[in-house]
């Protein structure tokens, strides 16, 4: 059974989401109203998915995602927020979150997104796709990194995601399987996160925060 941890500072939201996920047969192992405690206990809870609100009091959702991923790079975090997409969503995804869902999403969309996150898939909103596309273009202009370049196919698919097409619709349009589309989408996220990690390490080395050895 999929184990889910919910981090959200609004009690009513927390309860509503927990109810929806439990009703769909997912196992909500813990809920937290703030990020520090979630970060401290995540390892012991062994969740398949952490559903994390972007706006939290104290430690932000972005910082919490970064802390969770550095403690356990395989952890699967799905960001969740009430507002439209903003730069914080991109920051959370670069820090290692596996996707983003807007809170106004329907119950079925939420359950579907959590299940797919547990399955290792990337969850994109159109807005996030546009920001990731923009980020790759920014990287290629600023400091070209051969490891952080999208293939033509990946760019094409990301653009279709950004204009609201579902994986099913994209698969039909490109005459490939849904799984292939999902793999491409996942790659776009993986390469960006890898680039970000290399970037952070280099930044730390240059400033002597990490030892070269």
């Amino acid at each position, binding site marked *: 059974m999929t184990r889910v941890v919910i981090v959200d500072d609004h009690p009513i939201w927390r309860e509503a989401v927990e109810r929806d996920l439990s009703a769909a047969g997912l196992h909500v192992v813990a809920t937290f109203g703030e990020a520090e405690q979630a970060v401290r206990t995540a390892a012991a809870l062994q969740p398949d998915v952490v559903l994390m609100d972007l706006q939290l009091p104290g430690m932000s959702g972005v910082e919490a995602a970064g802390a969770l991923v550095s403690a356990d790079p395989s952890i699967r975090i799905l960001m969740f927020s009430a*507002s439209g997409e903003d730069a914080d969503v991109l920051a959370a995804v670069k820090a290692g979150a596996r996707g983003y869902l807007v809170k106004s999403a329907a119950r079925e969309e939420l359950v579907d997104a959590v299940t797919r996150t547990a399955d290792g898939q990337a969850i994109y909103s159109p807005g996030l796709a546009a920001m990731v596309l923009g*980020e790759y273009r920014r990287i290629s202009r600023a400091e070209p990194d051969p490891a952080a370049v999208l293939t033509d196919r990946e760019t094409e698919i990301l653009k279709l995601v950004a*204009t609201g097409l579902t994986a099913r619709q994209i698969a039909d349009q490109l005459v490939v399987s849904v799984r292939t589309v999902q793999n491409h989408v996942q790659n776009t996220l993986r390469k960006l996160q890898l680039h970000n990690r290399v970037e952070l390490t280099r930044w730390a080395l240059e400033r002597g925060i990490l030892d070269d050895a």
Partner: protein
Amino acid sequence: MPVRSASVGRMSAHVTGVRLSLWRAATVFRCASLIVCLYLIVQWHRLYQHPSAAYAAGIGMIAVTALVGVLGWSGRANRWPVVGVDVVATGGLTLLTIVAQTTDQRYGSQLMPTLTTIWAAGPCLEAAIVGGWLAGLVAALVQIGSAMIVRTGIDGQLWSSSFILLAAGTVTGYVSTLAVRAEADVAAAAAERAALAEREWLARSIHDGVLQVLGLTHRLGRDDDGELGRIAALAADQEAAVRALISSRPMAQTAVGGELGAALRALRAERVSVATPAEPVHVPPDVCRELTAAVGAALANVDRHAGPGACAWVLLEDHGDAVTVTVRDDGVGFDGDRLTTAAADGRLGVTSSIKGRARDLGGTATVLSSPGSGTVVTIEVPTPGREVP
């Protein structure tokens, strides 16, 4: 918010700040020139035909300097009546020279300066500070006129001092006007920043409270067929409206160009998703305006022709030397070959207007559609020589 209104209040008091500073500088000049005049009167009192008139002029100058100085230092004298009285009083005190000096001293072989001499420049500076170059000019002409009456005409020395008075009045007036305008601009920019900060603060609080509750209401009630379902639908509408309100930024148009991302995001609605890069996309103002208008036209087209319940997605891409905007809808679509039908129901008009706007910007627009599979409008516009972060 008391803290913010206090800072705005300080700013509005600050608008008279430059004028007040200039006025205080003029007051210092006035006091210094008064000392010179008094020294000359005491030094030369034996030479005058009626020293008492010279003393009277000295006392008058002290009184006027003190009165205007005290009023001016507190900021209360920056008004037309005070300046007007000062201009006339100074002119009048200059005329006392006619009584004090002999004709020889006034315009003959023993030529002496008027009793008020450089002190008479004071009202010219004050008028200029309050009313600009024209007021400075008028005040200078009054003092020159007064001196001409004393001298019964104009001679070489009066020419040069007249020139100095005119220059002082007009230049000070011009500088004062410029400084006040610059100060107003700075205050306006600060007010705009404060308003923006306040708006962001408001957006954050609305976001944390109102939007969450509306979203939750929508979520809990949307499957209900009765009253609750209707309330949920209303909550969803309000949620979209409030979100559009707090995300519309008045700063989308700037002096150097437009931020296309913000301009397009302002078009977000319940059935319209707008996806833009995280970094701002600065383009020339006309590109921003025309592209936003073209996207608006495309969205209006979706509203009219794509059928009920159709959704639209807008994607902005920044290629550095070009920008691409894609508008896709999942509506009924149309047959691209049947142009006559399209023209008949008005779609062609909108399509050609979008293409026209793109062409005017040196770009291209394509419209792809087929029955049942929605419409995709792609607009690409070159933006050469742009600085990209």
